[in-house]
């Protein structure tokens, strides 16, 4: 592949069997990928959450970004993602997929978790200051520096650091699939994260929730752009797009689902969706500025 002539900034890679770190500019970024949680870890997480865990819970996986000079620390954790799953009776906007009501929690594990500050506010000892400038504010739609530059991200610059971190997966008792996968790539000029939740409920609907995080190393003061998007479509609407009618395998492929949902007219996939009234449909963009 022809790579553009981009100077490679100084950086350091640290590696251990289950964890990798890159130190670049003012950042330290760590990805940990481990086996699924064992029985005792599952028991204690289940006790914390109060509902049955996904079949595959990667409780020890995480992605952490640390900006050294501002001590801004942002993470994607399995516990954080599952805490954002509705526990209790589902109400309007929760996008509940109807079945016989039993245990009151969202059995589809739908999460709109966009990552979070570390340690979270509730975990902090009282009296401790919040990290500076941790607030997300709506991005200015007119300001291109507050958007995610797709042209830059499509450019085949060298990837200095790459990781895929599954946080949880469940096959909904073979009634579909629910999964949250976080990916990161660090390029000479920027870092980019995509955390994607994908849900298939057979014969009912498809749902996707994306969180994208972008930071240009040259922004000053350091600026983080965060874009979240929710999509939905009825199952049959996506099934119609299969290349071969009898082969349903593409319906288990998140990239096929993404393509189907994002290429549909937005009034469908981000408007009426799967007719569940899910509040997360649509796209919003926010920014946060860090102290340099």
């Amino acid at each position, binding site marked *: 592949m022809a790579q553009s002539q981009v100077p490679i900034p100084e950086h350091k890679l640290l590696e251990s069997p289950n964890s990798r770190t890159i130190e670049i500019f003012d950042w330290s970024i760590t990805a940990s990928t481990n086996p699924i949680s064992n029985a005792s870890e599952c028991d204690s997480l289940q006790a914390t959450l109060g509902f049955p865990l996904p079949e595959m819970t990667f409780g020890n996986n995480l992605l952490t970004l640390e900006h050294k000079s501002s001590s801004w620390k942002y993470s994607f954790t399995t516990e954080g993602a599952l805490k954002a799953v509705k526990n209790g009776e589902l109400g309007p906007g929760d996008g509940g997929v109807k079945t016989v009501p*039993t245990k009151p929690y969202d059995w589809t594990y739908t999460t709109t978790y966009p990552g979070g500050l570390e340690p979270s506010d509730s975990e902090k000892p009282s009296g401790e200051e919040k990290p500076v400038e941790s607030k997300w504010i709506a991005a200015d739609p007119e300001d291109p520096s507050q958007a995610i530059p797709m042209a830059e991200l499509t450019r085949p610059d060298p990837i200095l650091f790459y990781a895929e971190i599954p946080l949880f997966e469940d096959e909904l008792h073979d009634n579909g699939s629910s999964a949250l996968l976080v990916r990161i790539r660090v390029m000479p000029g920027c870092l980019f994260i995509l955390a994607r939740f994908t849900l298939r409920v057979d014969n009912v609907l498809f749902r996707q929730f994306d969180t994208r995080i972008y930071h240009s190393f040259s922004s000053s003061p350091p600026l983080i752009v965060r874009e979240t998007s929710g999509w939905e479509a009825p199952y049959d609407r996506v099934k119609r797009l299969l290349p071969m009618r009898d082969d349903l395998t593409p319906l288990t492929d998140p990239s096929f689902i993404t393509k189907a949902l994002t290429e549909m007219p937005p009034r469908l996939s981000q408007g009426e969706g799967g007719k569940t009234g899910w509040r997360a449909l649509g796209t919003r963009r926010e920014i946060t500025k860090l102290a340099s």
Partner: protein
Amino acid sequence: MNKQMMNQALRVIKGRAMAPFDLDACIAQLLRKQLLHEALLREICEKTKEVLMRESNVVHVNAPVTVVGDIHGQFYDLIEIFRIGGYAPNTNYLFLGMVFKQSRVISGIDFRAGDYVDRGLFSVETISLLTCLKLRYPDRVQLIRGNHESRAVTQTYGFYSECVRKYNSSHVWTYFTDMFDFLTLSVVIDNQIFCVHGGLSPSIHSIDQIKVVDRFREIPHEGPMADLVWSDPDPEKEDFAISPRGAGYTFGAGVVHKFLQQNQMSHILRAHQLCMEGYSSLFDKHLSTVWSAPNYCYRCGNSASILEVGPGGSMYFNVFEAAPENEKDGPQQQAQQNASGRLPEYFL
């Protein structure tokens, strides 16, 4: 010609008509991970159906027997099982379900759409091998139907497309899924251990009620047959409850104890649920789950086990890890590359 001779002659003719095939050679070929011819598989599936048709919904066997849980088309790990547990017929085997669910292999590498199907998926080889072993040693190899041995599930989870890719038509998929309709639903070891893929059913109190289920069909959406292949234990419960997902049941301690007492048995053995340790025990060790797909979907990092049941009711979980061949010839190779950053992707 007297009647006896006539019958003998007839048997010879029938034998020829059945297109003689060398099962031992088929097994050897499959152990080398080479596919059998489509026409041969049709014959093998037909003959296997005849064997299965004669089996009761509850097959009784004696220890020693080695019990295998879900394998999920991980061919090399099945070979690993034979390596550590012994080959048939020297070891008696009971498989609590045979199949294949490979969506997970795909979902972590979603950006390579169109490519994933060619990597390390060997469900056809795995299922062909198990079928040949059943046909060759019908009394020493038992296959129980699991929830994945159905047309709907195999269509969604890759087995259908794997058959089409390897044989250029869906015929082989049809032979296998038609055969699945004949698989038995449960096995009882030494009148003591009840073995099933999923679990218990609220409409089944005694073993005799299983025997009268009409099993020669696609797995229905509800009823006792669906429950046996779908249900899960719930250690926090006493009784049956509808699963939170609205399909199938969960069953608690009271149900297990009552079932064992009523049928004068000591243990329930099932598969169907992934666990990091490769097995788990519940309800004062009256129920065990055995899981036999190590590093499930080539990225869970879990252990697997087979359960060796000895004479006198001894039970030993033989725990094992993923076979080394997966690293050279499986999606694991790709998954590892991703995890360690050697195969980065320009996702957007």
